[in-house]
């Protein structure tokens, strides 16, 4: 999982990224993207794998912001499913990717994590938000 300034997932499973690899930002955060590069095991192909992405604070609570439609928790969910391309040797992991574009967020200073649950596994990408000097 990589934090970047902007990203778009290619339909073939690749990700086009700009400004990738940051872990410190200011508030309000700039619009950014969370890119997830996935190697789907051969035995998990052709089945739906649930993907849940959440922004959590240093206490592990999901970040929620007030919007004009009420409180909204920051995150996303999807189900990914990849097939077995013709001609691929049996057992080959299959490339897949998921990108979540995130708008500017008014976060208080501190540590945060983008946490992704992918099937039975979970991964994190943490970052810090600087306070005003």
């Amino acid at each position, binding site marked *: 999982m990589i934090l970047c300034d*902007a*990203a*778009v*997932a*290619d*339909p*073939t*499973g*690749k*990700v086009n990224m700009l400004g990738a690899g940051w872990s410190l930002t200011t508030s309000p955060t700039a*619009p950014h*993207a969370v890119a997830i590069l996935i190697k789907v095991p051969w035995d998990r192909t052709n089945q739906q794998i649930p993907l849940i992405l959440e922004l959590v604070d240093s206490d592990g609570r999901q970040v929620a*912001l007030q*919007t*004009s*439609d009420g409180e*909204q928790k*920051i*995150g*996303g969910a*999807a189900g*990914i499913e*990849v*097939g077995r*391309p013709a001609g691929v040797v049996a057992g080959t992991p*299959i*490339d*897949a*990717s*998921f*990108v*979540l*574009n*995130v*708008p*500017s967020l008014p976060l208080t200073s501190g540590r945060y994590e983008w946490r992704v649950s992918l099937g039975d596994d979970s991964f994190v990408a943490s970052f810090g938000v600087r306070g005003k000097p």
Partner: protein
Amino acid sequence: MGRMKRGEFYEEDESIEDITAAFAGGDKFLTEAAAEPQRGWTASIRLPGRASPGDTYLAPVACVHRS
């Protein structure tokens, strides 16, 4: 559109409505590459009342062309 040929993407007696519905539903593709199963997805968080990536807005000024 260069790959579209009569008979390759639609039948002689297939209606325009059926052809367009097939393209819209993903049953027909213009290129072979597009027919490959998708393995990459892009989503965006939309926060009502806030700007999100990809949003576009009209400029707050009017542009007048003068010759």
